[in-house]
């Protein structure tokens, strides 16, 4: 489904990613792990097209996306979350979920000025979708709360909800468990499985928490210093000598 072939990128002489290749199959949960500065988030930023790759190509569903503009990535069916949460802070949770359905909008500015029945119908459909997501992630209590007054843990969930509102085929989760307490992480692992199995969304996640990785992911890519160490199932990767080295140092 998602395929990276020999991608490299460097920033001012620093090789952030070097000749990295991986392949994500449809329907799986694929994790990327590695110590700080390994270039995990950079991989996401390359897929989201915030950065250009220097070499190599990234393909989504067989189509090369290395030259697509950043906003067009969403329309291809790729949604993402951010490490430090990038929500629309001054708006309510509901509004955030509505904004996320932008790519499904079928009305033009002129009809919106007049608020024609078509616009109203679309608005109702958007709200229905948002309520589905609110039900799925148990966000009922926060529907009308503005984001800047929510605790961090809830914000992370809202951000996942926002990504789901796009109806994506592929969901990129950037450190979903960072900043969550153990109980919240536990909930998170169930939700990730639900999203994957019930909604049929392929998930790629960057994660530190080995427990979470072990619980949910089918395959793991371990990387360090922008290079692949190994790829395999969580148990294999966890005991792989290179991975142990990368974490404990030599």
């Amino acid at each position: 489904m998602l395929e990276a072939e020999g991608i490299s990128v460097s920033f001012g002489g620093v090789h952030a990613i070097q000749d990295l290749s991986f392949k994500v199959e449809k329907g799986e949960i694929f994790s990327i792990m590695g110590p700080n500065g390994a270039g995990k988030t950079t991989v996401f930023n390359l897929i989201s097209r915030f950065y250009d790759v220097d070499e190599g190509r990234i393909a989504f569903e067989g189509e090369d996306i290395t030259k697509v503009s950043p906003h067009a990535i969403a329309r291809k069916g790729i949604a993402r979350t951010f490490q430090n949460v990038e929500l629309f802070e001054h708006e309510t949770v509901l509004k955030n979920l509505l904004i996320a359905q932008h790519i499904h909008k079928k009305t033009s500015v002129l009809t919106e000025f007049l608020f024609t029945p078509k616009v109203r119908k679309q608005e109702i459909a958007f709200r229905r979708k948002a309520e589905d997501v609110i039900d799925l992630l148990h966000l009922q209590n926060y529907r009308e709360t503005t984001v800047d007054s929510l605790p961090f843990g809830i914000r992370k969930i809202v951000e996942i909800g926002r990504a789901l509102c796009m109806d994506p085929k592929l969901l990129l989760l950037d450190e979903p468990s960072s900043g969550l307490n153990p109980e919240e992480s536990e909930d998170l692992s169930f939700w990730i499985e639900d999203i994957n199995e019930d909604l049929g969304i392929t998930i790629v996640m960057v994660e530190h928490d080995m427990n979470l990785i072990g619980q949910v992911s089918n395959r793991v890519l371990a990387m360090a210093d922008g290079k692949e160490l190994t790829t395999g199932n969580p148990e294999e990767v966890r005991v792989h000598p290179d991975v142990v080295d990368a974490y404990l140092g030599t």
Partner: protein
Amino acid sequence: MDTVLQLLLKGISQGCVYGLIALGFVLIYKATEMINFAQGELMMIGALIAVTFTQYLQWNYFVAVVLTVLATGFIGLLLERSLLRRMIGEPPFAVLMVTIGLGFVLRAVAGMIWGHDPQELRTPYSDVVINMGDIVLGVSNLVVIGGTIALCIALFLFFRFTRIGIAMQASSQNQLAAFYVGIPVKRIVALTWALSAGIAAIAGILFAPLTAITPNIGFSGIKAFAAAIVGGFGSLPGAIIGGLSIGIIEQFMQYHFGKGLGDTSAYILLLLMLLIRPSGLIASMQKKKV
């Protein structure tokens, strides 16, 4: 050839003034990431205080200069203490608006105190000219250039070698980290404001003999801002170079195409700069990390 030289000289001395005001912009920007749009007004206040000291009070010119710089620096300090300190951590747009509002207030207050009639700053060198062949050099022009050079060297030494200068640089890069290592960030920021107001006063004193002083001369602040932008905002030598280029271009445009285009050329240059080479500005900025 002679006109070219004459224009060049006029442009350079005018440009030095822009550069000095731009220095103030850059200093405050570097220390606090705020843009002080009242910088031009501070220069105007400086010039008017100098007029008061020399004309109305009949003090010795050099004493007056020193006292003017101190007084204006003190005004800068007061502004930081009373107003801008409260704006730390507020969105940049809000800070910009506050300083714009401040510019209006300063201009209005200056108008109420000194009136709107043009004033003149008499200096010991006011009427002295040097004749070199066909070229007439006003000593005032030369003093501007010399003063700017001296000030630049002084600032360079200050930032390089004094503890306060280095502390200013540190807190301009990361306030929290600077605070952790024991730099009194609040005091440093206040000092930066005083310093840039002082520089504005020097700009005012140097500029005043070249022109008639009214509360509206503060508007050259916008041109100075253009200078800071052209110089790449964030570098002190850049501010001076930017100022010089704006000053020179303005003179030549005015000579060849009339006053209308001469006046606008700074703005056109500013727009072009922002449009064509935004990287010149953003070169010192990183893309937001996610």
